[in-house]
């Protein structure tokens, strides 16, 4: 019962935070530099790890698909399998997971320490809303950066798949055949679908991490606990949302 109450409280707090941030959306142009800074942190600095992970997800997909499909002579469809699963599912989801681990934790740590060291209180006395200058730029930045990350993740993942398809002996199909299959079955619509999904994930992850950071109570020790909680909650939310968003988008 207590846990249930905590969940409701958390949801309510997140929704409130979202509404408050959204109400300041008009101030975004004046917060340009903060927005750029967050874009830099969320997009640019996350890119390398997203690229590396996507490459290997692509390779693993191609390996597994090659192994499974070899049995009934459907190796030509590896490209389509890697293409579709990267674009529709794994690209968005793994990028969101990385975002939670890398950006979400940083956000929570920063906001939690601001809370613990009374910076948030200072903002309050200055009549400056945390939702406006701390949350809004991050939400806007994640919305802008997520599609870029996803497209890069997709392309790198596809490329990784083609490398495996070409060089692993038991797969051994040409990149032309691989990409032909990929192009035949993967439509731009699927990529857009994945981007929409990623936008939802990214937005929720950032929002939840902000909320947990801002609601940290107690001393500096709580910062670590808040970060852990933020990442765990984010990961759970990504997987739960994945089901529903996929259902809606299908």
């Amino acid at each position, binding site marked *: 019962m207590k846990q249930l109450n905590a969940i409701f409280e958390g949801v309510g707090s997140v929704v409130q935070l979202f509404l408050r941030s959204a109400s300041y959306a008009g101030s975004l142009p004046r917060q340009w530099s903060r927005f750029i800074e967050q874009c830099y942190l969320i997009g640019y600095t996350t890119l390398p790890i997203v690229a590396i992970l996507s490459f290997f997800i692509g390779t693993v997909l191609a390996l597994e698909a090659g192994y499974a499909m070899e049995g009934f002579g459907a190796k030509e469809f590896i490209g389509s399998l890697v293409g579709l699963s990267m674009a529709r599912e794994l690209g968005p989801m793994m990028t969101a997971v990385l975002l939670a681990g890398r950006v979400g934790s940083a956000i929570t740590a*920063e906001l939690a320490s601001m809370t613990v*060291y*009374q*910076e948030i*209180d200072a903002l*309050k006395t*200055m*009549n*400056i809303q945390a939702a406006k*200058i701390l949350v809004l730029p991050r939400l806007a930045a994640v919305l802008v950066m997520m599609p870029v990350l996803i497209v890069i993740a997709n392309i790198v993942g596809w490329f990784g798949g083609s490398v495996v398809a070409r060089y692993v002996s038991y797969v051994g199909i040409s990149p032309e055949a691989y990409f032909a299959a990929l192009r035949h079955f993967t439509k731009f619509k699927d990529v857009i679908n994945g981007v929409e999904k990623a936008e939802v994930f990214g937005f929720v992850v950032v929002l939840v991490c902000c909320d947990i950071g801002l609601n940290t109570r107690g001393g500096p020790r709580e910062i670590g606990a808040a970060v852990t909680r933020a990442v765990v909650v984010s990961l759970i939310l990504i997987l739960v949302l994945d089901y529903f968003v996929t259902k809606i988008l299908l």
Partner: protein
Amino acid sequence: MTRNPFTGAEAVAVGVEVDHVFKEFDGGQDVLRNVSLRVEPGEIFVIMGPSGSGKSVLLRQIAGLDTPTSGRVLVDGLDPALEETRAKVRLALVFQAGALFNSLSVYDNLALYPREHRLGNEAAIRAKVTHALKILSVEDAAEKFPSELSGGMKKRVAIARALVMEPQLLLYDEPTSELDPVMSATITEIIATLKNEYSVTSVVVTHDRELALTIGNRIAILMDGEILLIATPDELRASKDPRITDFLNPVIDIQHPRFKKLETQATT
């Protein structure tokens, strides 16, 4: 009444009214019990008391960062917890640890308020910020980050940041704690100067006897969440109340039950 150095407008100090405030934390412990006091516009009001007596909690109520369990706090007749009040009444709180924004330089820390509230263009803001830094003699630290500053510097920057807000009510939380005697004297001097020159209502929470007796127009002694008495420094010095004389001129006696009490009560 003097003019505000930043706007040139006549500074209108505001009064504070604390009316039968009780504050109870989740643990069920009363931190404040039936606290009532009035701060007149333009005066320096000092709230004194041992650690754990609830001074900081009381200050947070006045700043609107917290709401009382019962009773009410009014700043200029308005509830300070409401956003509308803070939009009307400029109140600044100098936090014990400074609470400077670690991600911003000292200059940006000071410029945040006028920028966010669009008080003039960048040149006007620069003039204002530089002026405030000069008053606190920390203009050299403008481009530094808070993590590079010493404790005393942090306090002075925090006060400068409060000044840039052109506050009508200035709240200090332990302004001289953790400072060496020289720096404490400097801060004391600054608080007094600000009051005299800018006609701002000040509420100082401290357990620093020197500071309280030097700058306070009136002093409230808060013990165990209750107001013991409110008096002028002279009245306080003349007081024969053992609890007060004990607090003002402590005799170090390890066996005294007061020490036990302080040990068991963590700083709130």
